């Protein structure tokens, strides 16, 4: 088998693994998790009718989405109204291309790194995708030709752009220590040294808060603040298009959690545990997803615990607190690295 063919096959296999885990296993059940978690926190049962513990609720939801009537408002821009959810969903799903979801597995005598594309501009790739995702929100709001939608779209656009800065700057600090823009290099650095959440606690904090804002989750879910904007940018969406928004929200959440895990929580690694051989590789995958799931739980926990910010509070938090903090963090990290001299 030529290296080219092997590379191609390996890539396909990796994509299959990631999507299988994410789309088939994680995504539908997150809805169930969220609703059960909400029930737990709010001291009520939550969905418990469909299947054991209501576990098949996800299947029922998906079915419902497919079967409902797809309504497009009369004065909407039909093309953009249709495209917008896709624009939102695609970046969320493709972020995983650069996230290392495991160490490496020996297959047919070759080591296969468990990352779909280990490119050297990984971080920039993620940021670029995030910035494209904004279009989904803004266009959905604009195309609906509805004032609530428009306000929601503009709000979310501004919010995502604002927090993207802090998020990027916080993330850059981890790449400065690792000396590379490859996410896999960051994980390797953490394996050799220490998890970034300890030396870069400030950056970690900024990144997590910004991730909440980026995913439009409570306490930053102003674009869809139901009290003021009905449902924000997806007010005019129904059926499967609404389903895509729904999916993309959870996909974004998974992507953000995965980024947090990769950059700050050691990725697929565990301290003092070597990952070698086939089983080590598989175990590393499990570790990675377990960590991601834990972070997702934090997301859910926060959602049902904290109240929503006001819009001006959101903006001043982003520009006046997080941005200076992340810049200071970056400067401090860069200074320390520069003091240590070239690696």
């Amino acid at each position, binding site marked *: 088998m030529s290296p080219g063919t092997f590379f191609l096959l390996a890539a396909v296999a990796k994509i299959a693994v990631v999507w299988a885990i994410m789309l088939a296993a994680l995504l539908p059940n997150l809805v169930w998790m969220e609703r059960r978690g909400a029930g737990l926190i709010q001291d009520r049962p939550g969905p418990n009718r469909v299947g054991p513990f209501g576990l098949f609720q996800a299947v029922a939801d998906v079915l419902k989405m497919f079967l409902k009537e797809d309504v497009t408002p009369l004065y909407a*821009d039909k*093309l*953009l109204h249709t495209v917008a959810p896709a624009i939102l969903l695609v970046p969320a799903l493709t972020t995983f291309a650069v996230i290392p979801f495991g160490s490496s597995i020996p297959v047919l005598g070759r080591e296969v790194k468990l990352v779909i594309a280990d*490119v*050297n*501009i990984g971080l*920039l*790739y993620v*940021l*670029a995708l*995030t*910035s*494209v995702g*904004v*279009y989904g929100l*803004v*266009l959905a709001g*604009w195309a609906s030709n509805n004032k609530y939608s*428009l306000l929601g*779209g*503009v709000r979310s*656009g*501004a919010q995502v*752009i604002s927090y*993207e800065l802090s998020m990027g700057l916080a993330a850059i600090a981890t790449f400065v220590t690792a000396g590379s*823009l490859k996410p896999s290099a960051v994980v390797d650095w953490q394996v050799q040294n220490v998890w970034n959440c300890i030396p870069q606690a400030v950056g970690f904090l900024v990144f997590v808060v910004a991730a909440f804002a980026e995913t439009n989750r409570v306490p930053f879910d102003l674009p869809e603040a139901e009290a003021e904007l009905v449902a924000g940018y997806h007010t005019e969406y129904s059926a499967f298009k609404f389903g895509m928004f729904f999916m993309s929200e959870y996909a974004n959440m998974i992507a953000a959690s995965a980024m947090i895990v990769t950059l700050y929580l050691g990725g697929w690694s565990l301290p003092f545990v070597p990952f070698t051989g086939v089983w080590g590789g598989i175990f590393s995958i499990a570790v990675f997803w377990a960590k991601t799931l834990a972070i997702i739980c934090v997301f859910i926990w926060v959602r049902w615990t904290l109240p929503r910010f006001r819009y001006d509070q959101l903006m001043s938090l982003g520009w006046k607190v997080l941005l200076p903090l992340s810049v200071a963090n970056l400067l401090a990290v860069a200074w320390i690295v520069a003091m240590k001299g070239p690696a």
Partner: protein
Amino acid sequence: MTAELLLFAFAAGLAIAFALAMVVEKTPVRSVLSLVVTFFGITVLAVMLAAPFIAAIIMIVYAGAILVLFLFVIMLLNLNEEAREKDSRPVQRVLGLVSALALGGLLLGLTLRAGKPPVEPSALPGRIPALDEIPLVGRLLFSDYLFAFEAVAVLLLAAAVGALILSRRRMD
């Protein structure tokens, strides 16, 4: 070999097609979106030119920031459709089209003539190795182009302040 050619054809075609769409489109929002797609095509071309960093920057800065800004302004000013009435300056229109196309032809000639590489590319020792682009650019930025870099920083600051002052509502 052919895969690369195909990719080029796809990206360049995408860019040109959507650039045309951008010009033809009457709705500003659609124009902006077309331009985003064009930029996507340009990004692909940049990656093919061993400039993934620049490609990502184009995506982040242009698509992620500048064009979103355009969208915001469009929404803020509620510019739904360009005026339907006929262009009141037909001479201007024809002359513009003609001169632009003439200039295009000339430029094509000029670029293609200058396009012959001075040396055989493969013989160049200093060819950019795709993997080392970022350190290379970084080192250039902070050595040979340091002054320009600082000047651009100041320019950006000035632009930010200027934009704030320009768009501020007059407090009467």
